[in-house]
């Protein structure tokens, strides 16, 4: 069966994807993610916010959980919502928030 997730490594090699490292897992080499950070106005356009999201091969991080810490590009994030499988489940998306105090 065709597995599109094999392209993730190629995307990373060409700078089209980056790598998320699980902070709590010693020696974790991370997994390849597509990372987006569109900004938006919410609450009656009174609040400026970023809707941070990663997309990754589900098999690379099958147990990613709410609250788990990830480091992406030197910045710490937490998984904000339970990851959502897309389509046939090959890929998942997870919303993140920047880890603050």
């Amino acid at each position, binding site marked *: 069966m065709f597995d599109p997730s094999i392209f993730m490594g190629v995307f990373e090699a060409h700078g089209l994807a980056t790598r998320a490292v699980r902070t709590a897992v010693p020696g974790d080499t991370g997994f390849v993610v597509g990372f987006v950070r569109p900004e938006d106005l919410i609450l009656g356009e009174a609040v400026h916010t970023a809707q941070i999201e990663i997309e990754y091969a589900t098999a690379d991080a099958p147990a990613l959980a709410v609250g*788990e810490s990830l480091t992406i590009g030197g910045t710490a994030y937490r998984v904000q919502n339970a990851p959502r499988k897309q389509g046939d489940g090959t890929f998942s998306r997870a919303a993140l928030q920047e*880890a*603050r105090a």
Partner: protein
Amino acid sequence: MTTLIDQAVDAFVASVTGTPEAVGGVFEDRRQAFTVDDDKAIEINLREADSQAFGDNSPLRSLVNTVLQVELAIYTRAAMDSAGVELPARKLANPIWASAHARLMADPTLGGLAVRVRWRRASWRAESADGTAGWATHTYEITLAMREHNLLAPQ
């Protein structure tokens, strides 16, 4: 020329300004959207004024009892802990409100400009974001007594 309404609202803002828990600042009618860096801020908006006249039909003798509706809105951004738990917007805002309210109630006449300042109601809103954004909006009523012909000074 500064009317009694303006003086009272200025005094309200001055009373709340300096609330130590409002580390993001205190603003009036801010037009710029609040960012994550503005966490724990207060925004004050004068919403409306309504009046009732007392006395006879002579503008020289009649009193106008004026009630201002002022919103004191507290802006917070939650941060998730390692267990994936965020404090509710209400809990983040409450210490700020309690502190700002104490400052107002230390002189509920706003330096003699108002008959009194009263808290009337509140509403809470929150929306998921890069750290849940929350607003706790408290409506205060400022009651003023003015002469109908003179909006400048309390009578």
